[in-house]
Structures are given as structure tokens and as C-alpha cells.
């Protein structure tokens, strides 16, 4: 019983981490109808950057994160402005394949620079427990992940729902021509959306780097997880992404508690496949397939 309870607690918290990985992908999909295959690699890129800044520039993790975000903003601007904006109107496929190429470039670039070894962002949090009672333990790192995820998702929801910037982005996404007629430069809105996305990916990258070890090629693995959160929660829904992450985390850990930890990932993927086949529009989405 304790094992199950422990699995549920850890699963929910892990789901928070998954959600913050997925939330950027959800934004990009919701706004540009683009599945960013490079999303996982962009996140791992920021894991490496944070690690690099902490080791060589500044020890403070928050300062390193800010530096990472700064670099990633430039990177995000470039890929959106020079690459994606130029193919987004040519249908789904070209944009998808561009991000696919980008994914290969980023992961191989990281491989060239940092080599194949496993890396981590150093932190004490992973070794300490926030709660340790009645056989249930909660790792400080997992707790931090969840809190940050919730905070980021609330912040993003506020930006998208309440600010002029968010309205502009939403308008550009729902009716490009009408937005242009109202003076909204829709391509610029896409750039802003990408900037928000890489910011969340940077935060996710640091948390992932602190929680798990990572390699240059780990990006693809997290892409599937991100995609999972997004699909379960309904493409484009921010709160849904959190729910998606939690369901995925729970499925993995509860499943593993029955079948053994070797099956943790497999169970997660199978749950995802079933959901994709049965309700491809997501669990929360009200949309009906035509």
C-alpha cells in the first residue's frame, strides 16, 4: 500500500516536470499548428547551457538560468524569424521537417561539443527529502519541479489570457488575416510565442538537468514525453498540459509499481498510444473530430 501511495505521490510530482517540458510544445502547437520536433533538443540544449554557465561563468543557478534564457531567446528568435516563419504558410509538412532537421543539428552539435558522456546540473536538492514520514518520502527536487511547473503554467495562462501580448498572439493564431487587418503583425506574434516557448524550455531544461542525467541525444526521449502531455491534455491547452503531465507521470509510476520499474517508460508510451487512438483531440478538448 505504501509503495502504491509513494508511486502516486512521485508520479504526480514527476508529472509536474513533464508538464513544464510539454507546455512550450503545447503553445507552439496551439498557436502555429506546428509540431516542433526540435522541442526536446531545444530543452536539452538549455540543460547543457545551464550546466556550462554554472561550471564556467557563475555558480549561482538562478543567474546561470538567466544567462541561459538570454542565449535561448536569441536562438529562439533566429529559428522562428529565419526558418519557421518562412515555411509556416506552405502547409504542415515543410515546417515539421524543418524542425526535424533542427533537432538533428542541435543534438549532433551538442554531441560534438560536449561528447557522449552523461551530464548533470549539480544540485543538493536531489539528495534531500522535503518530507520523510510514514514510509513516504518526497524529494526536494521533485517538489521544486512541481511548484515551478504550476507557477510557470499560471504565469503563461495569465500572459495569454490577460495581457495585450497574449491577446495578440491568440488573435494571430485564430484568424491570421483578420488580425493583420487590425494592424497585428502576425509573423511578429509567432516570434513572441516562440520566445515564450524557449523561456519555458530553458526553465524545464534546468530542472531536468538537476533531476536526471542527460546526454546530447536525450532530447528525443523528452520530445515524446512533451508530446504525450500535450496530446493527453489537448493540444494548445495550458492547464490541460499540466493534467496530461500528471496522468503520464502517474501511469508510469503506478504501472511500474505493479510490473517493475523496467516497464515504467513502456507503460507510459502504451497509455499514450491508446489515448492517441481513442481520443486524438485530447482528454480535455471539447473539439469533436469531423
Amino acid at each position, binding site marked *: 500500500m505504501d509503495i502504491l501511495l509513494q508511486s502516486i505521490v512521485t508520479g504526480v510530482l514527476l508529472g509536474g516536470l513533464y508538464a513544464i517540458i510539454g507546455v512550450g510544445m503545447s503553445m507552439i502547437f496551439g498557436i502555429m499548428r506546428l509540431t516542433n520536433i526540435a522541442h526536446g533538443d531545444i530543452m536539452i540544449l538549455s540543460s547543457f547551457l545551464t550546466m556550462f554557465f554554472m561550471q564556467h561563468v557563475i555558480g549561482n543557478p538562478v543567474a546561470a538560468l538567466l544567462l541561459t534564457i538570454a542565449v535561448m531567446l536569441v536562438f529562439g528568435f533566429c529559428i522562428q524569424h529565419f526558418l519557421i516563419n518562412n515555411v509556416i504558410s506552405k502547409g504542415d509538412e515543410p515546417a515539421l521537417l*524543418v524542425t526535424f*532537421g533542427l533537432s538533428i543539428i542541435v543534438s549532433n552539435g551538442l554531441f560534438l561539443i560536449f561528447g557522449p558522456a552523461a551530464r548533470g546540473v549539480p544540485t543538493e536538492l536531489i539528495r534531500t527529502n522535503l518530507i520523510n514520514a510514514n514510509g513516504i518520502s518526497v524529494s526536494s527536487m521533485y517538489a521544486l519541479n512541481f511548484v515551478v511547473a504550476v507557477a510557470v503554467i499560471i504565469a503563461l495562462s495569465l500572459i495569454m489570457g490577460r495581457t495585450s501580448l497574449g491577446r495578440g498572439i491568440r488573435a494571430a493564431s485564430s484568424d491570421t488575416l483578420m488580425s493583420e487587418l487590425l494592424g497585428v503583425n502576425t509573423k511578429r506574434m509567432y516570434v513572441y510565442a516562440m520566445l515564450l516557448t524557449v523561456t519555458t524550455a530553458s526553465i524545464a531544461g534546468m530542472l531536468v538537468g538537476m533531476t536526471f542525467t542527460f546526454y546530447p541525444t536525450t532530447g528525443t526521449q523528452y520530445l515524446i514525453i512533451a508530446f504525450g502531455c500535450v496530446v493527453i491534455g489537448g493540444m494548445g491547452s495550458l492547464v490541460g498540459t499540466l493534467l496530461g503531465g500528471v496522468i503520464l507521470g502517474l501511469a508510469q509510476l503506478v504501472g511500474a509499481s505493479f510490473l517493475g520499474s523496467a516497464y515504467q517508460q513502456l507503460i507510459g508510451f502504451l497509455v499514450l498510444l491508446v489515448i492517441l487512438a481513442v481520443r486524438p483531440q485530447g482528454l480535455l478538448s471539447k473539439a469533436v473530430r469531423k
Partner: protein
Amino acid sequence: MNGIFSKGPAGMAGPAWHARRIAPIAVLAVLVSLAFWGSDYLLSIMILIMCYMAIGQMWNLLGGYAGLVSLGQQSFIGLGGYTLAKITQVYHLPVILAFVLAAVISVLFALLISIPVFKMKGVYFTIGTWIVAECLALFFSTWSFSNYAQGYTITATYAFSTAQIYLVALAVGVGALIVVMAVLRSRLGLALMAMRDNAAASEVRGVEQYRTKLKCFLISAAVTGIAGAALYLNQAFIQPANAFGISWTVSMVFIAIIGGMGTVEGPIIGAVIFVLLRQALYNFPGISMMLLGLIAIAIIMIAPRGIMGIIRRKTQFEIFPVRRHPSA
């Protein structure tokens, strides 16, 4: 073979018509003869070109013709490879049986997963097929039947000379080409052409979308499975992470994009460039992949129809015609 390569436009006769009939036979003769005079190094490169051309053709049949952008074709490579390993290494049965079974198992598996993945549209299909492959990788590394994550060393390889393996690869490569040509020249090909042009309109004209796409999916699974067996016959060592790894599909996508999606010639050009570039930068694997990524992005942005698209626009050149012409 003749039937497939020789159908020129009606009313076409004389030298050009003969060239069209003779040239493929001549090229094939040269390729076969290579087994007897080519150096082992040349042959080992040709093996890769042939196998990659085959899997590139199959990805192109899905992505370039049927509108099914899959990132999960590595499922069939892995199944083909494991079939070979299991048949030769564990059951000590002839290699040829492994090739037949590779196709059969791939088709059956494709049929099985078509139930969920064909419910997914567009990008959902793309990622869904990928997740299937990842599931296979995870499952095979926990499955005693496939010897967990250790996989197998395929000793059958050492019973063959490089030239013999080359002939197998050649058969796979040419076979894939013939399959694609046969598909494109059949009723199915006509439907694919229409669907690619305007899916909604093709449905109004009576083209069943589901069935047409499923046929392509199964055909490409069969050939990719066979090519997987050939690739692992050459590689002699198989493990789940590698066998079901996304990098197989990465290469297929690059081959199709660079050569030209939706053309028969494209994957041939793409496979040659892919293998040669990778071989030239053999000691810098990261750089060759980055370079391929850059080339692919540049091509999507500048010339979306690939190298073959550029050649066609300039010259109307076509080695493998699939168009229909009214009889005189």
C-alpha cells in the same frame, strides 16, 4: 523487369525508345558485375547505398506519395534485423527464410499497428508511429525471447563474402525500385497521384483514402523489413536501442528530402549523397549529421522538391516515367 522499365510514352519509337529499354539492363549488368571486380571497400559502400536507397524509397512511398509522414519506419528495420538474428543465430535456419519471414512479420505488425495509428491524422500519425517504435525498443530490451538489451551477434554474416552480401543488397535495392515502379504504375499509383494532388477531390471521385494508404503502409513495411534484414546481415550485430532507433528514419527522411520527395529518382540520388557524405566524414559522425541537417533545411526552404525537382524543372528529365498516356 522489362515490363516495368520499358513502357515509354505511346508512339515513342526509335533510338530514344531503345535507349530507355536497354539502359536499365546495361546499368543492372554493370552493377551485378561489380560483385566480381569491385574492391571490398567499394562493395561495402555499394551495400549501404543499395540498402539505404531501398528504405529511402519506402519512406518516400509513404511520405512523398501517400501523405503519411512516418517517423516509425525503424520498427520494421528492427523487426527485420531481429528476424534475421533469431532465425540464423538461434534456430540455425537458412538466411533466405529470414528474409521471407522479415517481410511477413513486418506486414503483420504493420497491420496490427494500423488499427491505432490509422486513427491518427497528420502529425499525430507521425508521432504515433514513432512511439510505436520506441515501445518496441523498450519491449525488446526487457524481453527474454530477444535476449534483453544484449541482443545478438549475427555470425551468419561471416559465412558470406562481401561480394555475396553485396548481391543480396543489390537485389533488395533493385527489388525496392521495382516495387515502387509497379505500385506507381498500377491503379493504386493513379489513386496516390490524385490524393497527393487534392485529397478532398479524390475522395469525391471515388478514391477510398483509408484503403489506399493502408496498402502503401503494408508494402513499405514489407520492403523495409527485408532491407532491415539485409542491413543487419551486413552489420552482424543487433541491439534494441540501435535496431529501433530513430536514426534509421532520420536517414530515410534526409534521403527523400535531399533527393526529392515524391519522385522515384530522388531516393536514389539522396542515398548516394547520404552514404558518401557519411563515409567521407566517417571519423566525424556528428559533423556529417549536422551537415545533412543543414542541407535538408536549406532544401526545404529553397527547393522543396529536392535535387530531382531542380533537375526536372530545368530539363524535364525522367528515368522512371510513371505518367499515363492515351494509346494512339
